[in-house]
């Protein structure tokens, strides 16, 4: 690779362009914070008006899969950050390996969530608009509201996970073509920020879905 890295004509140096891309990603993540912030406000309203039913809904969720998924996602962020350390030293082979492990962990998360947990919920008639909704009687409304939040929240998070996995594949492809070096690895950093942000979204969804209202 040439020592001086190519940069777009409106920047004066490659490192300046790299930092600008990182700043742009942080600002994009700020918009995503507001996007999920709207969801959190619906959680506040739904729970405030139907606390009994809402907490009844929380007790129907599968805590073990949720906790396992949280662990999987936290570890995947750790592995990707490790990969970032390697590319800073120029070790492309280890970067690719770390990205693959992150990819696998991400797929495990999706498999657990949409392959195991969701079908389990459908089987238990927990889909909110199901006529034979599992919880009936006094706290039916609140439980339906909980599962509306549950399915929309996890679906949105799942969409962001799939986009994250796409970005990971793109980073792996470019790493294999040898485009990254200690002086130029902006896409790796930017995708790392996005992946850790998706982990952050899960870290806020996890208590809202699995924990609050769990105890007696």
């Amino acid at each position, binding site marked *: 690779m040439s020592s001086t890295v190519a940069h777009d004509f409106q920047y004066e140096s490659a490192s300046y362009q790299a*930092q*600008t891309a*990182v*700043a742009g990603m*942080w*600002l994009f*993540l*700020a918009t995503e*914070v*507001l996007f999920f*912030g*709207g969801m*959190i*406000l619906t959680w*506040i*309203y739904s729970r*405030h*008006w139907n*606390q*009994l039913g809402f*907490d009844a809904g929380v007790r129907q969720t599968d805590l073990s899969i949720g*906790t396992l998924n*949280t*662990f999987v996602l*936290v*570890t995947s*962020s*750790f592995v*990707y*950050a*490790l990969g970032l*350390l390697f590319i*800073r*030293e120029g070790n492309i082979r280890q970067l690719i390996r770390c990205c693959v492990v992150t990819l696998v962990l991400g797929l495990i998360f999706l498999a657990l969530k949409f392959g195991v947990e969701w079908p389990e919920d459908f089987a238990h008639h927990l889909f909110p608009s199901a006529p034979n909704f599992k919880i009936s009687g006094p706290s039916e409304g609140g439980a339906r509201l909980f599962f509306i939040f549950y399915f929309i929240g996890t679906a949105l998070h799942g969409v962001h996970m799939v986009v994250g996995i796409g970005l990971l594949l793109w980073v792996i492809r470019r790493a294999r073509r040898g485009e990254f070096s200690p002086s130029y690895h902006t896409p790796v950093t930017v995708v*790392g*920020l996005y992946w*850790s*942000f998706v*982990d*952050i979204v899960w*870290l*806020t969804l*996890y*208590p*809202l879905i*699995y*924990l*609050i*209202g*769990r*105890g*007696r």
Partner: protein
Amino acid sequence: MKPGMMRLLVTWGLLILLGGTELAASYLPLARCWRPLVMIPGVLMVLVVSIGFMEVKKGPVIVRAFAVAAMFWLFVLLALGSADPLTRTNYYVPDIHVK
């Protein structure tokens, strides 16, 4: 031990620890309206990830500005947004008679 490896391990350890406390705290017999306090470890985990994995402290100063701005605007949305339901007194009948 690679430079920065310690940072990652500490971050990972902290996250596991906080996740555990969060899980345990959810089993405390809290009154229904105090249960959202379980979110405190959650918020700490978000902070740990943004410092540990996302290195918010590195890079240009506007990175930190955008992160703080996101948190401030989220706080405005949630605080002012929930001001209405928390203070909305349902239709209240004046005490016509006191038995």
